[in-house]
C-alpha cells in the first residue's frame, strides 16, 4: 500500500493523464454525470417526500369521510332510490359501536355571500365543532378556533381562512373583533388561520361557524352534511370504513349489502398510494443513478483500454527497463480509481450545488414544490465507495491487458 502515498506513483499517473487531457476530461464528465444525476434525483425525491409530509403533516391521515347518497336496493318496504341523510345521533353510535375509532367529526356546509363593508365574496360556510382542529390542524394567525362555549350558546362567531381574509379585509388589517355579514346576519370574527395543507381532506378554506349556530340559521335540524371518522394510529382504516358503513346501513334501515346508500372517501388509502408512489420513485432514482454510474465506470474502463492499447509500446519499454507486471497493473488500476474518485467527487459537489440552487428557487414559501431537497451523507458515501470499488474492478481489465502482451511484442508495436 506504500505506493499509494508515493509521490512518484502520482507523478506517473499525472503524466499519463496529461498526455490525454481531452479524452480524460470527457471520461470524467461521463462518470460525474452519473453521480450528479444520482445526487440530484435523490435530493429531488427527498424534497418531494418532504413536501408531501408537509402537506399531510397537519392532517389526520388515518381517516375516512362518509356522506349520505341514495339507496340502490329496496329494503323493509322502502323502494330503492331513497335519499339518505346522516343524523347527528349517528355520531355517538359510531363512536360507541365501531372498534378503533378515535374521533367522529360531523360537518355541515353551504355556500353563501360574505360581506364586509364594501368587500364581499361567495364562499363555503362550514358548521364545525372544536374537534375539527384535532383532525385538520388550523394554524391560527390571530384569535382562536370555535370553542365549546360557542357551541353551547350558538354564538354568532366565525373563524376565517387566509384566502377569505385576503378578499374581505385590507392588507395587514386586524380582523379579530370585526363583524362580517353572512346572509345578512352579523358574525363576530374570532379567528384567522392559515391553511397549509392541500386538498384531499374534503372542502377547506372559507368560513367556519359553530355547528349549532349552523343548525339553527340554516334550519338543518338533526341533519349532517358529512362525517369525518379517524381511526387510532394502529387500526386499519379500511376496516373502520366498512364497519361504519354497515352500522349506518343498520341505523338507517338500509339493506346490509347496499354499498351505495352511503358514500365514503378513504384518505388513508389515497395517502398510502402516494407514499407507495414515492417509494417507487426512490427505487427508480436509485436504479437510474446506479445504472448511470455503472455506465460511467464502463466508460472509464473503455478509455483505459484504448489508452493501454495506445501505450503498448511505452509499456513494453518500461518492462524492458525492469518494470514488474505488478507495477504496471497497479499503475493502471490506480489510474482508474483516481479518475473515478475525481469524477465522483466533482459529481457530488455539482449535485450538491444544484440542490442548493433548487432549494433557493423552489424550496421556500407557501407553495414550495420541493421542500428541503437533501441527500443523506451515508447514502452519498455508499454511492462513492461503490463507485471506487467499481472503478477498481473495471481497471483490472485494461491492467490485465497491459501485462498480457509480451514485452518483446510490445516493443515491436508501432
Amino acid at each position, binding site marked *: 500500500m506504500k505506493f499509494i502515498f508515493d509521490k512518484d506513483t502520482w507523478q506517473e499517473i499525472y503524466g499519463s493523464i496529461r498526455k490525454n487531457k481531452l479524452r480524460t476530461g470527457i471520461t470524467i464528465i461521463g462518470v460525474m454525470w452519473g453521480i450528479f444525476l444520482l445526487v440530484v434525483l435523490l435530493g429531488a425525491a427527498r424534497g418531494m417526500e418532504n413536501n408531501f409530509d408537509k402537506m399531510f403533516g397537519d392532517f389526520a391521515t388515518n381517516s375516512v369521510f362518509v356522506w349520505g347518497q341514495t339507496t340502490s336496493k329496496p329494503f323493509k318496504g322502502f323502494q330503492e332510490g331513497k335519499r339518505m341523510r346522516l343524523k347527528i345521533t349517528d355520531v355517538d353510535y359510531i363512536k360507541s359501536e365501531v372498534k378503533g375509532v378515535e374521533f367522529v367529526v360531523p360537518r355541515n356546509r353551504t355556500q353563501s355571500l360574505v360581506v364586509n363593508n364594501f368587500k364581499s365574496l361567495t364562499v363555503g360556510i362550514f358548521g364545525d365543532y372544536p374537534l375539527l382542529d384535532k383532525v385538520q390542524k388550523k394554524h391560527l394567525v390571530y384569535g382562536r378556533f370555535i370553542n365549546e362555549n360557542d357551541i353551547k350558546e350558538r354564538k354568532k362567531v366565525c373563524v376565517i381562512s387566509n384566502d377569505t381574509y385576503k378578499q374581505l379585509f385590507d392588507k395587514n388589517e386586524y380582523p379579530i373583533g370585526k363583524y362580517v355579514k353572512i346572509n345578512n346576519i352579523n358574525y363576530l370574527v374570532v379567528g384567522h388561520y392559515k391553511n397549509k395543507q392541500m386538498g384531499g381532506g374534503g372542502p377547506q378554506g372559507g368560513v367556519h361557524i359553530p355547528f349549532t349556530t349552523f343548525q339553527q340559521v340554516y334550519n338543518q335540524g338533526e341533519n349532517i352534511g358529512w362525517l369525518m371518522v379517524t381511526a387510532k394510529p394502529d387500526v386499519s382504516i379500511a376496516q373502520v370504513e366498512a364497519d361504519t358503513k354497515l352500522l349506518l346501513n343498520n341505523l338507517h334501515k338500509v339493506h346490509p349489502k347496499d354499498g351505495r346508500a352511503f358514500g365514503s372517501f378513504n384518505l388513508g388509502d389515497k395517502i398510502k398510494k402516494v407514499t407507495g408512489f414515492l417509494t417507487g420513485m426512490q427505487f427508480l432514482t436509485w436504479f437510474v443513478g446506479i445504472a448511470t454510474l455503472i455506465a460511467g465506470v464502463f466508460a472509464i474502463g473503455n478509455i483505459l483500454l484504448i489508452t493501454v492499447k495506445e501505450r503498448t509500446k511505452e509499456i513494453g519499454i518500461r*518492462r524492458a527497463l525492469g518494470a*514488474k507486471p505488478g507495477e504496471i497493473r497497479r499503475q493502471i488500476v490506480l489510474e482508474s480509481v483516481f479518475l473515478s474518485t475525481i469524477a465522483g467527487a466533482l459529481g457530488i459537489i455539482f449535485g450538491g450545488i444544484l440542490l442548493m440552487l433548487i432549494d433557493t428557487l423552489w424550496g421556500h414559501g407557501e407553495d414550495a414544490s420541493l421542500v428541503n431537497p437533501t441527500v443523506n451523507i451515508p447514502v452519498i458515501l455508499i454511492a462513492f465507495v461503490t463507485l471506487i470499488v467499481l472503478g477498481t474492478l473495471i481497471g483490472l481489465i485494461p491492467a490485465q491487458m497491459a501485462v498480457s502482451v509480451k514485452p*518483446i511484442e510490445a516493443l515491436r508495436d508501432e
Partner: protein
Amino acid sequence: MIKIEKLHKSYPIGKKDFLHVLKGIDLHIKEGEFVSIMGSSGSGKSTLLNIVGLLDEHDEGSYYLNKQKIERLDEKKAAILRNKFLGFVFQSFNLISYKTALENVALPLYYKGVSRKERQETALKYLDKVGLKDWAKHLPNELSGGQKQRVAIARALVANPKVVLADEPTGALDSTTTDSVMELLTAINDEGMTVFVITHEQEVADQTDRIVTLKDGIIISDEITEKGKKTRHYV
C-alpha cells in the same frame, strides 16, 4: 558474463509449421568485452539479442547470465534481472515521449526502488557523462537523433548493469552521429562495461573488438578485429 550453449529457438508459423531461427548457437562473452553480432536480416541476430536480453525465452540449450542459469523465468523475475543486469539501447531510441530526458534516464532507477532525490542526481550524472546535462529538461521531440540515442545510452547505464545490449543503435542515425554514438559506446567499454551490439553495418562492427557473424541461425565466423587485437582482453 554471457555463456550460451547449443541454443535453439523456433517460432510457430500457422498451426503446424515452425520457423527454426536459431540452430544451436554457442557463444561465450567475457566481462568487459565489446562484441558485435553481424548478419543480414533474418539471420537470427535480433532473436539472439532478445533471448540474451530476457525479452524472449529459448527453447533448447542453456544460457547463463552472470553465472546464473536462465530457465523458466516468470515475468516478474525476468523484470528484476533485466533491471539489475541489463541496459537496453534500441534502434528507434524508445524514449517515453512525454517525459523529459532526465525523467527518461531516471526511469530504470524508479523500478529499482531508488529514492527520488538519488534518482535525479544519478540520472543527471549520467546525462552529463553523455554530454547532455544542459538538455535535461527537454522532451525527446526537442532533441536530435544523436542526442536521443545518447539519452537512451545514459538510460541504459544508469542502473549500473553488467551488460549493455544495443540493437542497431546506429540504424536510424547519419554517419557523423553514428561515429559519436560508437565513440560513446567505446568509451563505456573502456570503463569496463560489457557491450553487446547488433548491427549490419561493417563500419560499426569494425569499431568493436570482436565480430560474431550469424547466417541462417548459426555462427559462421567469430573474429577479433584489428582494434580488438590491441585491447587487453585478447593480448
